[in-house]
């Protein structure tokens, strides 16, 4: 026990050390920009008095992060909102599209998993639709749905439905036939069989599918929002890119990573619970 504890401690120490060395190297690698003080008019108009756009040092990113995080919910008009509001918009879109996908994918996955005929009939369609890049749907969605907000949600929906559908189908079809037969000898109806026997047995696989899906949904939202704009963390990145402000871009990339990790860890916890239940 003590050895694992010290292992963990050593690993944590090592992590911190790697981070410190990386940040230090990064900081040192960025040359300090010499801002001219005595300038001709030409030099001033060439931007001699202010920093050129470039890769910022980590300290600059930290300053930007502090600025943004200390006031995350300001609202300065439709195109300039705090980072907290932007993340909330993105999460709202992701959870709406993802929720709708789950409502359709899980029952449908059950159906496909329980009926080999349905599986074989639907499989070609799924295999064709699954590898389509989510953003390829965007122009079509904008054209048909005629609403950019709903189109962004649709893109989340269409990209997160497949892993849930396939994993559910796989999990359901993989339930041991003995258990289903036992249920049949107890004269359980097919709905009760599905809920009391198959669902618990297939649950870990279903959760795995849901976990993959939420990861994809979060990957896609940033690109979708860069395209349709308006609000959200993807729009924020694009707006700062407009201004070639890389400190903000790096800060938002880190924030996207952290949020994605938190979403993933929710499912990791769920997965662990369900696996232990068996």
């Amino acid at each position: 026990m003590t050895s694992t504890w010290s292992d963990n401690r050593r690993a944590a120490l090592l992590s911190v050390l790697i981070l410190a060395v990386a940040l230090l190297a990064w900081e040192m690698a960025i040359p300090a920009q010499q801002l001219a003080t005595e300038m001709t008019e030409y030099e001033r108009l060439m931007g001699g008095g202010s920093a050129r756009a470039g890769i910022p040092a980590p300290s600059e990113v930290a300053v930007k992060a502090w600025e943004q995080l200390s006031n995350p919910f300001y609202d300065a008009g439709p195109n300039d909102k705090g980072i907290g509001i932007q993340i909330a918009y993105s999460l709202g879109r992701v959870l709406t599209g993802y929720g709708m996908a789950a409502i359709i994918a899980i029952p449908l996955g059950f159906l496909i998993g329980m009926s080999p005929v349905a599986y074989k009939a639907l499989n070609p369609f799924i295999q064709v639709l699954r590898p389509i890049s989510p953003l390829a749907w965007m122009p079509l969605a904008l054209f048909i749905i005629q609403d950019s907000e709903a189109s962004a949600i649709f893109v989340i929906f269409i990209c997160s439905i497949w892993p849930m559908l396939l994993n559910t189908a796989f999990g359901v079809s993989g339930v041991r036939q003995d258990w289903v037969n036992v249920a049949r000898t107890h004269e359980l109806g097919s709905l009760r069989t599905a809920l009391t026997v198959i669902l618990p047995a297939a649950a870990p696989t279903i959760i795995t599918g849901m976990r993959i899906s939420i990861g994809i949904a979060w990957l896609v939202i940033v690109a979708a929002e860069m395209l349709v704009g308006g609000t959200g963390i993807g729009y924020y990145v694009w707006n700062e890119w407009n201004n070639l402000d890389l400190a903000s871009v790096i800060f938002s990339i880190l924030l996207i990573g952290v949020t994605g990790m938190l979403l993933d860890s929710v499912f990791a916890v769920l997965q662990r619970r369900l696996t232990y239940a068996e």
Partner: protein
Amino acid sequence: MTIRALGDPFSAQTDLRHGAGCACTGCRATPQSLPASPEAMIERAVESAIVRSMFGHSDVSRRSFMGMLGGGTMAAALASVLPLDQAKAAVLESLGPLEKTDLAIGFVPITCATPIIMAEPMGFYSRYGLNVSVIKTAGWAVARDKSLSGEYDASHMLTPMPLAMTMGAGSTAQPFIMPAVENINGQAIVLSNEHLDKRDPAQWKGLTFGVPFEYSMHNFLLRYYVAEHGLDPDQDIQIRVVPPPDMVANLRAGNLDGFLSPDPFNQRAVWEGIGFIHLLTKELWEGHPCCAFAAPARFATEMPNTYGALLRAIIDATQYASDPSNRTEIAAAIAPANYLNQPVPVIEQVLTGTFADGLGEVRQVPDRIDFDPFPWQSMGVWILTQMKRWGYIEGDVDYRGIAEQVYLAADARTVMQDLGYEAPAENYRTHDIMGKTFDPADPEGYLSSFAIGRGA
């Protein structure tokens, strides 16, 4: 008082000899609906007077003619010979209550959108009783799609876009109107610092250029410029559609050798030390149109009062922006993150015309970008000739018909005069582009005068 002559003159059903509330059998069978507002009545009276005079005030022959041909055909045919829009602008002289006060207007974050953007922080919309949200849009294709879908009530567009959208080139066809130009001039050709020695376009063979959109003045001006120097824009150079914010980064990365793009990205390339200003587009065509204020045609017909108020706000802001002494104040108003999200000195250089060109000179060009709302229909005809020249549209083009349907010069004139500004009396004029005169009366002749082109 009997109200005569206010029935629809294009309908075979109405009898213009009978007034409203006439009790004869014919009138009771098809009750006349009177125009709803006094303004609509005046419009109706103008139309009616013209139509009746054509038939020598014989209502029987008018009705049989309309019945035979259909009133819509007649209205269209009449509009093509008589400048009906001169007599009857869609925008009303005096406005009734606004049908809608909360509006969403899209813009792409470039200095061409200055009047549309500044009207928000500087109070031009609220002056006309409107509560407008100006929404930043990632690119022209999205601005087009959000306008087509009705998410935007009106939008900042490139001057060729409403023409293309009305004809259905590159999108579904939906009638759009463009009652005001936003800016004239205001673009530049920027080359990467690697090409400091290539000041002659004849040396540009094999280079890659960026333009912000296919249906843009940027694309047409760049093609025109290189073609005048003997290069075929489809064979000798590569033209890529690149969103404006990506232009500077692509120039730095060497993906682009140059671009003809909207400001502030020309100036931003100089500011970042990556490129230099090869040429201002005003040196190609002094006073060329660039961006525009456009809306779906139904916006003007369904909400005439709101449309009138919005157009007044836009033209008022455009006129304010055209005064050089206001430009510094405007630069400060539109630079923040909510609007252009750019350093103030960059915007200032663009708007005031005192700028570093990246070649070691400080240049003074006060009308580097200027603001003039009048949508010359001859400019629309020129754009259509170039769309045909490069194969974006094919076949017989009704140049004047489309230009007049989309570029609502009469509306702009009404509002400009209403606000006390001078407006041109004509809708067409000749333009001088790189020393060559364009006569809007002969678009096909102009088109066939070029050695390089696709669709002649």
